[in-house]
């Protein structure tokens, strides 16, 4: 793998963050382990478990009980072309691809 592909993947992750942010979702867990490189060499920002709609930004500091689950964010993220993977991956893929075999 070329180094520039790592660089591009980080850049794609950053762009995904921007798309989500512009659609009203803050990822809140940017880290090397949360950007994966697909077979098409495109970087994908994953693990949206800590993400939160900007409209629900709490007045009080972050607490575990205030984390909004991904299914609440899903419609927003799909409209922003941001596909969540990992814990809510099945749900996201099902919605995006109606012909998914387990759908």
């Amino acid at each position, binding site marked *: 793998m070329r180094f520039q*592909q790592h*660089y591009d993947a*980080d*850049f794609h992750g*950053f762009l995904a*963050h921007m798309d989500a942010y512009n659609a009203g979702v803050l990822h*809140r867990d*940017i*880290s*090397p382990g949360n950007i994966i490189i697909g077979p098409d060499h495109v970087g994908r920002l994953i693990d949206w478990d800590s993400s939160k709609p900007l409209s629900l930004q709490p007045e009080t500091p972050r607490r575990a009980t205030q984390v909004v689950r991904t299914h609440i964010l899903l419609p927003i993220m799909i409209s922003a072309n941001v596909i969540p993977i990992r814990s809510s991956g099945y749900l996201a893929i099902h919605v995006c691809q109606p012909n998914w075999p387990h759908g």
Partner: protein
Amino acid sequence: MSASLTGRMGRLHDHKDDLESSFYTLLWVTLMYSDCSKPEKVPSLLRSIFEGGFLAKADFLKGRTFLDRVSFPGRGALHTLFDELAQMFAVRYEQAPTKQDRDRASRINSYSTEYYETTSVYKYDKRMSSLNTHAAIIDLFEAALRDRSQWPPNDPAVKQRFHHDPVLHELVTKSGWNTTLFVEQLESGDDEMEAQPNRENEVDDCHSLRWEL
């Protein structure tokens, strides 16, 4: 995680924290997969930035000592990118202008806009506002990619292996916080002092200093 969040876990997590985290992500990937001019400096930097706290990250951004001394051979654009990103995020940890500074700058602005743009207040506000959106960082990302001469032709990503020597005998400073000084008085020392009061180094002869960790 941004330095700001590391230092004050109670504060709200905003998009600037995510932007700063993107910088650390790119830095981590680069240190892990690209040669650098001083690989022996990398483990301590990784420990300090990714395992250290607020001060380590804030000082890294503001001081940029590592970035001044270390380069990425064949990838000059990366060095420029990191330096500019560090400068961009450092403003979050710099002293904000005081009300007095702002009043003075405001008076200057009413007199000359051109001169106002040279004031520290204007520069601070401009740098802070560059973090309000993703645009300024995207510009820097794209600028680093634009000049292909700044990237090596084959450009392999090579997983770096950092040598870490186990510390067998940790050196400590005498004034270290984890050092305790014991002064033991020798039993026979007092008699000799009285008999020979003008001896040189009498204290050293009469007391033994012992450092314990």
